[in-house]
């Protein structure tokens, strides 16, 4: 896929804005990345988008690296540069500044209201992200039941046991490779 400088700049500025909205982690902005990259610009298909995130989940490291993979799949190394610097610069600057400012004001009414008010939105966004990731499989009749089974097993194991997510990722890999999903 060929992209010009305008596309790269658009990608960069979109991720700059998302960086400041990513309360609760970069993963909570997945629905908006999907809206921008898949629905609005058609740079990736639904399946490519979900595969990008799955690759990042399968590899070690912070979850935010799915942003690097998305950038790579849209426009190669320059795409990664655009998305990663976009998602990191604003939140890094703000983080460093706010930690120094906020550590003295943690108990003030404003800081507490800010935290308390945004917590339910963060959780709503996490559930929305889970839905956006699962949806492309659930809508396809051939993959629906296998995917639903894997999502349910993952939920059950994560909520009921202390097993490392690594084993579930391995289970998904094997079940998928042998055609159960």
């Amino acid at each position, binding site marked *: 896929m060929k992209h010009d400088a305008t596309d790269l700049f658009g990608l960069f500025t979109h991720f700059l804005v998302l960086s400041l909205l990513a309360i609760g982690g970069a*993963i909570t902005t997945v629905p908006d990345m999907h809206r921008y990259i898949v629905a609005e610009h058609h740079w990736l298909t639904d399946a490519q988008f979900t595969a990008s995130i799955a690759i990042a*989940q399968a590899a*070690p490291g912070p979850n935010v690296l799915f942003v690097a993979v998305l950038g790579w*799949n849209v426009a190669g190394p320059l795409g990664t540069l655009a998305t990663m610097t976009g998602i990191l610069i604003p*939140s*890094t600057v703000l983080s460093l500044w706010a930690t120094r400012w906020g550590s003295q004001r943690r108990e003030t009414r404003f800081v507490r209201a800010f935290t308390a008010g945004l917590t339910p939105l963060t959780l709503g966004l996490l559930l929305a992200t889970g839905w956006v990731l699962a949806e492309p499989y659930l809508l396809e009749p051939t993959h629906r039941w296998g995917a639903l089974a894997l999502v349910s097993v993952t*939920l059950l194991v994560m909520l009921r046991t202390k097993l490392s997510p690594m084993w579930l990722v391995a289970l998904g890999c094997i079940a998928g490779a042998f055609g*159960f999903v």
Partner: protein
Amino acid sequence: MTGVDAAAPLAVPASRRELFFAFTRLALQGFGGVLPVAQRELVERRRWLSRDEFVEMLAISQVLPGPNVVNLALMFGDRAFGWRGAMAALGGMLLAPMVIVLALTALYVRFDQYPMVTGALRGMGAVAAGLVLSTGFKLLGTLRRNPMGLPICLVFGTLTLVGTAWLRLPLAWVIAGLGSVAISVAWIRMKPR
């Protein structure tokens, strides 16, 4: 937690280089999330933070925008060696894992016509969805201690879910609109301290 003596003095990172490699080591162990590994390495193995300090830093890093565990690295690095320390911790955490994940991506593009490969990725994608959902469900319990009360929180959470997953509204609108209403409600419900 076994092996942690609360009274023993904490250690400090000796140099920015040590900080860099400590965060690389920590990141490379994190399959499906780095936070649990960060706790084990920083608090229990290296003893650079007490458990209380870790929880406090985590709370702040969750309120701030941006990736939580990245914010945690920044904060810790900043405390140890100022902004250069923050850059060392950030670079250590991201560089090596990024090379690995991009190599996997490049490999995947070459093998994506094999049904076994696409199948494996589909399986991992479904698990990834389940992991994110389970994190959301686990944290729902914390809403009981929210000053707005559980029912109001569930209304805000549901509206966010419907707005972003179903109506696909731009996130900026949802946070600016719904977020400012929620912060105002929390402010009113909260007694001044």
